[in-house]
């Protein structure tokens, strides 16, 4: 790949000390993510995919190895507001309106008032929530709440978007729609996206690169570069190419399990 590296991990290790002894959450992780890539992390629970994403976001601290984001340490990248983070639950503040929630990071980062309004309007349009600015989160459906939380992550100028199973709690119909919209959004903004999921079709449908991981210890077992075109209608999932990639992912997951 000739794309400039945005996220780079070299022999990364992360060990949690628990009351049952140390847990090896990440073992010898080597990974390079280029600019503008859509990278999915897939694997069974406990494989460290979320931990890796959190380490990139400076929410966990690696025990050894190097990890750089935009050429900086994760902490410096966080302080430079290099990425937006979307959690599995929308995590909107119930006491703020939808617009108020999207504005929150802008307020914290000290954007001028006029620009705040302009950005909020723009990202809400991007996630198709125009007209819901004055609603409170609890008046919206789960899918709409999650879209608002994506808008919140997009509101400031981070060129990396980290998403931790953002659609995991939604039903499949809503999920398909949001997947489609996410691809459109990615095409429109050119951001680098890191995406944690445990759904094989979702990973294959969305990504340019699929990182297959397996547990105990959490490690990368396969990195698959997708051959699918960037332009992806929903019915691409019935193509032979799609099925072939999905098969390879499934093989990778199974290989990881043989080791236990």
């Amino acid at each position, binding site marked *: 790949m000739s794309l400039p590296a945005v996220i780079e991990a070299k022999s990364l290790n992360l060990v949690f000390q628990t009351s049952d002894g140390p847990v090896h959450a990440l073992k010898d992780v080597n990974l390079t993510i280029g600019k503008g890539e859509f990278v999915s992390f897939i694997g069974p629970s406990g494989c460290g995919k979320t931990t890796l994403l959190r380490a990139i976001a400076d929410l966990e601290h690696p025990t050894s190895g190097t990890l750089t984001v935009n050429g900086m340490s994760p902490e410096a990248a966080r*302080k430079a507001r290099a990425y937006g983070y979307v959690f599995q639950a929308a995590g909107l503040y119930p006491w703020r309106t939808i617009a108020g929630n999207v504005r929150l990071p802008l307020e914290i980062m000290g954007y001028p008032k006029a620009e705040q309004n302009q950005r909020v309007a723009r990202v809400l349009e991007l996630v198709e929530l125009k007209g819901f600015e004055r609603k409170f989160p609890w008046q919206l459906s789960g899918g709409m709440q999650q879209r608002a939380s994506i808008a919140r992550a997009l509101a400031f100028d981070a060129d990396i978007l980290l998403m931790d199973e953002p659609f995991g709690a939604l039903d499949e119909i809503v999920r398909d729609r949001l997947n489609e919209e996410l691809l459109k959004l990615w095409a429109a903004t050119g951001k680098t996206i890191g995406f944690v999921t445990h759904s094989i079709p979702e990973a294959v449908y969305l990504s340019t690169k699929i990182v297959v991981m397996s547990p105990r210890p959490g490690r990368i077992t396969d990195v698959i570069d997708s051959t699918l075109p960037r332009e992806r209608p929903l019915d691409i999932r019935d193509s032979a190419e799609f099925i072939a990639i999905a098969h390879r992912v499934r093989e990778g997951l199974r290989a990881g399990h043989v080791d236990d």
Partner: protein
Amino acid sequence: MSATTDPNRAGWALTWASFAALMVAVTLAAGLENPSHVMGFQPVIGLFGALMLGLGPFRPQLAAAGPRLAMLAAVAACLVFGAFGLLDWAERSLIVGAMAVGYWLAAWMLVARLAAMPARGGLLGRAQALVAPLVFGLTLIWAWQLAVQALGVPRVILPAPAEIGARIASSLPILWTDLVQTFGRGALSGFAIGCGSAFLFALVVDRFDFLRRGLLPVGNFLAALPIIGTAPIFVMWFGFDWPSKAAVVVAMVFFPMLVNTVQGLAATDRMQRDLMHTWSAGWWQSLMFLRLPAAMPFVFNGLKICATLALIGAIVAEFFGSPTYGMGFRISTEVGRLQLDMVWAEIATAALLGSAFYGFWALVERRVTFWHPSQRGR
């Protein structure tokens, strides 16, 4: 099914009409002979009317709300009509007892019918929710009045509600003076100082994890102690007037408020704190944007607890010494003079005041924490 074709209903209407005619005839006959006899018949007529009306309309065929509400209103009217008659009649105590039990049961049926009705939204629903406790409360007061009259309970043991009401009406200036002294000067200032300082201190405690781990158990412990016992000490230190009352109130409300606020400030979930972290928000920012708003339900819980404690503290502190006015002073001296109607007048005032102060904070809470699940449904 059309209600008009129901033979049951027609039969019931006929029964009711003939009964009503009979009652009117009897009452008129009795009234013509001697007007005071109407008094004697009043409770009998009322109770019978209530029972007839009450047993009749609760058939599923008549489920429409309008006629049902009208029927319930008619039952209530009959009950009120008869109940007043019973009060005038209270000397014949054996019959009175039986009648009183009958009224109680009839009122109970009324409440049961009301409670079984489907809940309604809006103003009507709110009224519906109020009727049952109101009927219960009024029945209780009525039974009290009746019992005092019928059994001839001496005033020095239990005055009748009517006497207490008269006493309240005739001594409004005294009640007002006491209220200003105890609530206005003692409880309110103590409440403001205690809750305000506890809130500010909670912010400091929240800033330092060591303090939180150390102070929270100690605060919880102190909040469970009978702090009211410090009243004599504060009366010694600050004199008989309101500052000592305010000090007792401060001591009583400080720890409950502190514990609640500290817990509230810690009540954010992990994900929301992580989110703040990914935005590199500072301590101050995460306080203003996240933890303070999230703490509000806890803060108001503390304020509501303290609202009750404040009045209790101010009243009890006056038992240990006070100027010659104030609610606690009045209660303890009038008890000594066996002027129980005045004592009850003060207690009624205190009860009203306590609920009003509590209700005020509950209202503010609803305004501020409109987003909280516990507030949304209403």
